[in-house]
């Protein structure tokens, strides 16, 4: 069944004031928050910075963010009709939007 939900996303780079953008996203039963974030990049705002690799499998473990205040893999949280707030991890260094520094220290330049 097709429905519409709203995603409220915290935006901005480190060292600048953050803002929240709200996007309306169509979805089918079972779709994930990551599916919605990817939909936003294709259809609404390609400049949204997110991190993911495996899309479906919960194997890459890189799509982690704060969903409604909880640390979650965004691929594992299902969409509901209620507004969903997505924010970057608060305890990691912010790079931009939902991307934080989760790479091991010795893998950075």
């Amino acid at each position, binding site marked *: 069944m097709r429905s519409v939900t709203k995603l409220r996303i915290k935006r901005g780079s480190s060292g600048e004031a953050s803002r929240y953008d709200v996007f309306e996203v169509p979805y089918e039963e079972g779709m994930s928050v990551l599916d919605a974030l990817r939909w936003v990049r294709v259809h609404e705002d390609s400049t949204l910075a997110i991190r993911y690799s495996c899309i*479906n*499998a919960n*194997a890459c473990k*890189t799509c982690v963010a704060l969903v409604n205040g909880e640390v979650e893999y965004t691929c594992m949280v299902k969409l509901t009709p209620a507004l969903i707030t997505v924010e970057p991890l608060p305890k990691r260094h912010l790079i931009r939007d939902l991307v934080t520094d*989760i*790479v091991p220290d010795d893998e*950075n*330049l």
Partner: protein
Amino acid sequence: MYAAIAAARAGATVLLVDKGQIGRGGATVMAQMTVAAALAEEEPDSAALHLEDTIKAGRGICNEELAGLVCAEGPKRIREMEEWGTRWAREGDRIKQAMAPGHSVKRCCYVDFLNTGPAVAATLRRKIAEFPKIRRISNLAVVEVLARDGRAMGAIALDLRNGQLLTIDARAVVLAAGGLTKLYARNSASANMGGEAYALALWAGAELVDMEFVQFFPIGHLAPRLVGMDPIMWDPFRYKLGGKLLNGQFEEFIDRYGSTDFGQYNATRDIAAYAILKEVEAGRGTQHGGAYLDFRHIRENDLRAAFGPVIDRLLANGIDLSRMPVEVGPMAHYHMGGIRVDMNMRTRIEGLYAAGEAVGGSNGANRLSGNAITEAFVFGERAGCAAADYAKVSGRDRDQKFAEANATQLDHFSGNSDDNGIAPIALQTELQKLMWELAGPFRTGEKLTAAQARITEIKNTQLRHLRFGSERQFNLDVQDGFELRVMVTAAEAVVHAALARTESRGAHQREDFPLTDYQLIKNQVLELRDGEVVCRWAQPVRLDRSQVEKPFEQ
């Protein structure tokens, strides 16, 4: 990762870069399934028998030297991985090996439950960390190999964290960036593989081979929406439990297409993919354009005994196999074609090597299930050793001016945003749809010609007018733009080769040429001339079968 380990072990200093996070993207981490090797733990087996099965699946056009290498060295690599900590499923003192389609004996080992890829990737990540000579850098996307006069000297890479292009000096370069499944709207892959290895190799002057052969996995998951699992997870279910493949009218149908199935798992991948899409075309598909896979006849206890925690993961997705079938259908899964190399993974460009799925030829027209991870290990090990040996004897060929000139040119590409242009990711989405519809599992000359026209148009016009956001940090538009550039070249290669092969063979199915042409037991070799892809025919590389080692025969 295997190549990095092998090179470091051979004494080289290694820079391992990944556009995502090292060891967390690509195909390996997604592979929940099995690895084929003639370990002969379950029943008598040999490299020669494994090779025979591989060549049969490849429909007569495998590079038999490469395939023989995979079969002969696979067991060594599997056992080495176990020494490094991979816990292959065991029963007592022997490694469990399962039967899989196309194999004549039980040959496929795995890590329970559906955890082969993640377990293997974790082992390699841990092993890599033991080598101080391997420097890892994540979020660094290689966008071009630096090559001049037939010799590779390094690479240019995008630092995603700050948007800068960097030049990297190297005495040898190993391309291990996987396949091109991202070219297709329906695919089972992670987000990383748009054909980078192929495009980078072509641009550097290397040759590709067999680019028309994209493997479409027949029973990828279509519906209901399932997350937390690999879309091709139903394969192991079928190994262990059978399961019935039914059309939209709940009839078994594989027997209508010259094979048998009947609750077993016998049909090869190409026949199963063909049968499902033909049923859909005849109006007998399911709602999401596939077939039903039905386990309702299997007792719940048996389901749970076979897949334990996976059953709970399915229930969390609202999928109760004892009550409902799921919808499955073909999706792009693997690429048989790739970079043309010799037994030491050398391309025709000195200092440029390939490893893993990026290598073309060993699987011919259709890959035997279980051979993908095996070749990742075997080719990786070979490439790493050969590149290290070459680096020891080759002089340093640094040319900063040449490197900077190349980087400046690339900077023009990503530095010039057209505010009225299209976002690269939107164009990627269009290209994926185009490839699925016009160059997918069933092809015709007409569809392929239309695909070629649109790809040329994207290359010549829209690729020059992309809209990039202005942010410096983690600007995915820029990464998508470089990726699109690669995808266009890879798509061009696939379509070009598919048009020229006027027959149906293995994974390449032409509706206007449905028969296999015995004049075409040949491979197509591709190269760039004046920026255009050109193809030529070549005889398959044959092997004297007596040369294949049989050290693991019981």
